[in-house]
């Protein structure tokens, strides 16, 4: 019963939202270039399947490569930082600084640095965006070990290596998955938005801005819709990774809900 409700409730709400949207546009006779009907967006999406699919592929590739590169770098740097207490004490200021920094806005500068005819600049932006949530979370996980676990391991005369392997790493895993989930959503947003600043015209973001320049609002919405789907896909992938990496937590979440 609960399971049915959990799946049905958002679907019903989504359908109601789309229905209200459709009704509003039709009943108020809103012009399509202001706000198209969901059905109109859907038909554009279906009619331009391969076009939109290719654009989505280009953007998704950037997002994925950036996400993976940024996350790997973040994990490595977190390991190094964990060894130095001065760096650890800087975690909060660092994360605050980077949370307020509009990394996507660096897009034009990177296009200048890496050339606007390649995807490199975009991937660098995504990697930077993905880096910080992963870095901050992994570093927290590596350093914030429960005092009772620390005392226990000391009472077992465990070596530093054993402590890292048996306590720090599994402890950090939960933080890593949290960081990855945030980074996965952010990387899609970053990959789309950075395309607004120029560069190659192959991705979803550039297609949205082009469509709007030509007043093809339903088309722009179709691209946005596929960007939303892509964001969902990345998010679900993050969740699946979490289930795979932390089987003990999965059963707990299932029991909680």
């Amino acid at each position, binding site marked *: 019963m609960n399971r049915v409700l959990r799946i049905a409730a958002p679907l019903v709400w989504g359908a109601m939202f789309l229905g209200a949207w459709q009704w509003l546009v039709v009943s108020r006779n809103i012009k399509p270039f202001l706000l198209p009907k969901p059905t109109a967006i859907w038909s554009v999406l279906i009619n331009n399947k391969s076009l939109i699919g290719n654009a989505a592929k280009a953007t998704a590739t950037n997002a994925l490569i950036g996400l993976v590169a940024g996350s790997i770098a973040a994990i490595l740097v977190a390991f190094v930082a964990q060894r130095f207490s001065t760096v650890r004490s800087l975690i909060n200021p660092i994360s605050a600084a980077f949370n307020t920094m509009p990394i996507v806005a660096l897009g034009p500068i990177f296009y200048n640095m890496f050339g606007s005819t390649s995807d490199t600049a975009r991937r660098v932006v995504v990697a930077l965006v993905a880096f910080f949530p992963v870095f901050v979370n992994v570093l927290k996980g590596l350093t914030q070990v*429960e005092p*009772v*676990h620390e*005392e*226990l391991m*000391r*009472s*077992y*005369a*465990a070596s530093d290596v*054993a402590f890292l392997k*048996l*306590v720090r790493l*599994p402890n950090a*895993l939960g933080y890593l998955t949290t960081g990855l989930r945030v980074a996965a959503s952010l990387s899609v947003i970053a990959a789309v938005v950075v395309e607004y600043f120029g560069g190659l015209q192959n991705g979803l973001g550039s297609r949205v801005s082009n469509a709007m320049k030509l007043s093809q609002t339903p088309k722009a919405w179709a691209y946005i819709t596929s960007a939303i789907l892509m964001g969902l896909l990345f998010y679900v992938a993050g969740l699946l990774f979490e289930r795979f990496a*932390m089987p*003990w*937590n999965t*059963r*707990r979440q299932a*029991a909680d809900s």
Partner: protein
Amino acid sequence: MTPAVDVANVSKIFNAGKPNQVNALIDVSMQVETGSFVSLIGPSGCGKSTLLRLIADLIQPTGGDIRINGKIAKQARLDQDYGMAFQQAGLFDWRKVARNIELPLELRGWDKTRRKARSAEMLELVKLSEFANHYPWELSGGMQQRVAIARALAVDPPLLLMDEPFGALDEMTREHMQAELIRICEATGKTVVFVTHSIPEAVYLSDRVVVMSPRPGRITQLVDVDLGSRVEQARESTEFFKKITEVREALRGIEYGLLAANETSRTSAGVIER
């Protein structure tokens, strides 16, 4: 015969020389006979947990000497001569119950078959065999604490150090766990040093109750208890109530002492100290 634990003239001062210096323990001496059960009791800040951590070599004394079966404390820790349990069970979320118990064995380099056999044996001892393949969060607080005790006993150490292991449990579970602990200790012949806040718990479990007082932390009284065999009826015996009164009065004496001391410091310094 060498005592299981020998604490000689031990002091522990935190933040020595700084304005926030704390004299956690001053010149404490204590011996625990092999096979006996000793409780440390006293108001907060009396250094009972500090004393336990010094015995475990989790922290180092400022002065004095601590020996476990004749070995210096550090060597005893390196040899895993003791098992330890805390107020929090401190189980590892990512390990199933059996593998939690096997952790100290892994660190000792036991092979898998031997580890499995031992964790099964320990689970039987704490009567949780059917939960071997559960994750810790699937167990109640009392069950988790039993796993923690099983883990402390897994390497078969001659000495158990316990820091308020039942402190977070409700009264019913607590009494049940006390009975279990007595049963396990009688079955295995362990020496136990047990920190607690609870007077009945200390009296029921112990051969000797060590009463401690704060500022500076020191031992003020030893109360020997002999309840005979620890059956449930022992909780209703006259000896039990007599010893509870004795410990309570020892603790009350400390309180009066503290009040008097505060009175003096108030009149001399013109401030109320707590």
